[in-house]
């Protein structure tokens, strides 16, 4: 990258990799899996040139635990993977959340369940937002919708992870990972985070530090979980982000996350041309989720139609958010071909007849 302000045509995977370098990622640990392997390949070439750490881990389990070890020393580190292999990392994510360690994990989603296939999907909303690890914990989840956002949100992921000492998942999908778009790296806009109060660097001139779960002390553990959730309330207050388009006069709000956002924006224009007052809403942070804003829109009487490539995972959160004040419909296909603009328009028209309280499932 010679000129950071030059527009380059770049794949989402490479964009994430280079953005991680720009964000000061000192160590990368990973194991190959389609459709995100280019990230590890790119960094295997770049990290040694910069004198930074790179390990081809023996498994995803090892990779994420290497990240946990590395970030405990106060440096920025990351692993990247996809869906079924991210499932293997859930134990370590629970540990990292409990131990308040700034792990950055990129999930370039593919289809599931099980082995599934390498085509893009959005089936890991629940896995990311609600987690597969044990106990009560919360992860910050960021969902980009363009290659440019793959860059911007990678910067943000490293910053938020250290700022709040909390794991962050960048939830992309195979479409974003594989496609090229013009994008600009610019400069990492976030300040350095002071980690000196907790990072493990050896007990020199200070007391020794231990980063661990407070298992045997029941009172402390109870308080610890409360503290983790209080911290997340602050995160929700300060860091919840979303985008909305033409919601002011909208009667229905198409809602999607990640790269599906592109399709609902196009569908909105078609619907508007047909005289249907449609708007768009798109959470950028899936966790913390913009419950408050959705409730506000619902209170204004706006109905929601959630469009996603899964069986209605985010749909449940939108439904929960509206608190019964408006209707929430669902347009979905579990995996495979992304719902097209035409399909979305057609389904919205069908949903209108049912006052939006239904779901249209494509095969």
């Amino acid at each position: 990258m010679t000129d950071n302000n030059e527009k380059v045509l770049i794949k989402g995977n490479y964009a994430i990799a280079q953005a991680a370098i720009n964000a000061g990622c000192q160590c990368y640990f990973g194991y190959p899996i389609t459709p995100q392997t280019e990230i590890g390949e790119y960094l295997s070439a770049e990290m040694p040139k910069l004198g930074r750490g790179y390990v081809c881990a023996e498994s995803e389990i090892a990779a994420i635990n290497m990240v946990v070890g590395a970030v405990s020393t106060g440096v920025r580190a990351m692993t990247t993977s996809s869906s079924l292999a991210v499932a293997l990392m859930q134990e370590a994510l629970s540990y990292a959340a409990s131990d308040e360690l700034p792990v950055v994990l990129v999930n370039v989603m593919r289809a599931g369940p099980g082995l599934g296939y390498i085509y893009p999907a959005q089936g890991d909303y629940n896995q990311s937002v609600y987690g597969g690890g044990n106990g009560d914990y919360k992860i910050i989840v960021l969902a980009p919708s363009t290659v440019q956002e793959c860059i911007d949100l990678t910067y943000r992921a490293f910053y938020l992870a250290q700022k709040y000492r909390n794991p962050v998942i960048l939830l992309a999908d195979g479409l974003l990972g594989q496609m090229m778009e013009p994008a600009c790296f610019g400069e990492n806009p976030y300040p350095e985070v002071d980690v000196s109060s907790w990072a493990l660097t050896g007990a020199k001139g200070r007391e020794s530090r231990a980063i661990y779960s407070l298992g045997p002390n029941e009172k402390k553990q109870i308080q610890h979980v409360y503290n983790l959730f209080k911290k997340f309330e602050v995160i929700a207050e300060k860091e919840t982000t979303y985008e909305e388009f033409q919601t002011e006069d909208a009667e229905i709000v198409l809602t999607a996350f990640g790269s599906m956002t592109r399709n609902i924006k196009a569908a909105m224009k078609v619907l508007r041309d047909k005289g249907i007052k449609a708007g768009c809403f798109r959470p950028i942070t899936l966790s913390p989720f913009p419950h408050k804003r959705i409730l506000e829109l619902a209170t204004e009487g706006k109905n929601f139609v959630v469009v996603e490539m899964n069986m209605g995972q985010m749909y449940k959160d939108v439904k929960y958010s509206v608190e019964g004040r408006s209707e929430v419909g669902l347009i979905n296909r579990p995996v495979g071909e992304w719902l097209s603009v035409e399909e979305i328009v057609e389904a919205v028209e069908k949903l209108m007849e049912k006052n939006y309280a239904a779901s249209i499932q494509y095969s």
Partner: protein
Amino acid sequence: METNFILAGFGGQGILLAGTILANSFMLEGKNVTWYPCYGAEMRGGTVNCEIVVSDSEVSSVHKQDTDYALVLNQQSFDKFVHRVKPGGTIVSNSTLVAEARPRTDIKYVFAPMTQIANELGNSKVANMAALGVLASVCSVVSKEYLAKGFEKVMSGKKKELLPLNIKALESGYNILAQAK
């Protein structure tokens, strides 16, 4: 306005590179563009393809079922993608390797000997640039001048030496249909 393209051929014909050059040409023209490949196990069968969407505004779906233009460099790709061209759309075929046939009546057909052009220039590898030249001659959204700039952008360093030959292939492809008339 959105226009989309599918480029397809067999491995070694430089399909993904041609797509990258085309996408870069759009970017350099200041348009919104996305490039999306087939990838992973799909690529093991020998044929490759990529999809490009260019738009004045934000690009919506990346991976579409149908296309305005299909640029196909071998028979297999013709057989597969002729059915994915929108009514009124165009399939641009490499007649050196694709038999002239018109299985549908609602699309336009362009046949040009792209591999032959490349062979006559002494390097079969530039068939992809000849193909882009042909495409530019039949599609007003594609600019020959920006294709040349796109090539320069993609081919950095030592590969720049290949520029004159590739420009020749681009020009030959661009002019071939007019010459045939």
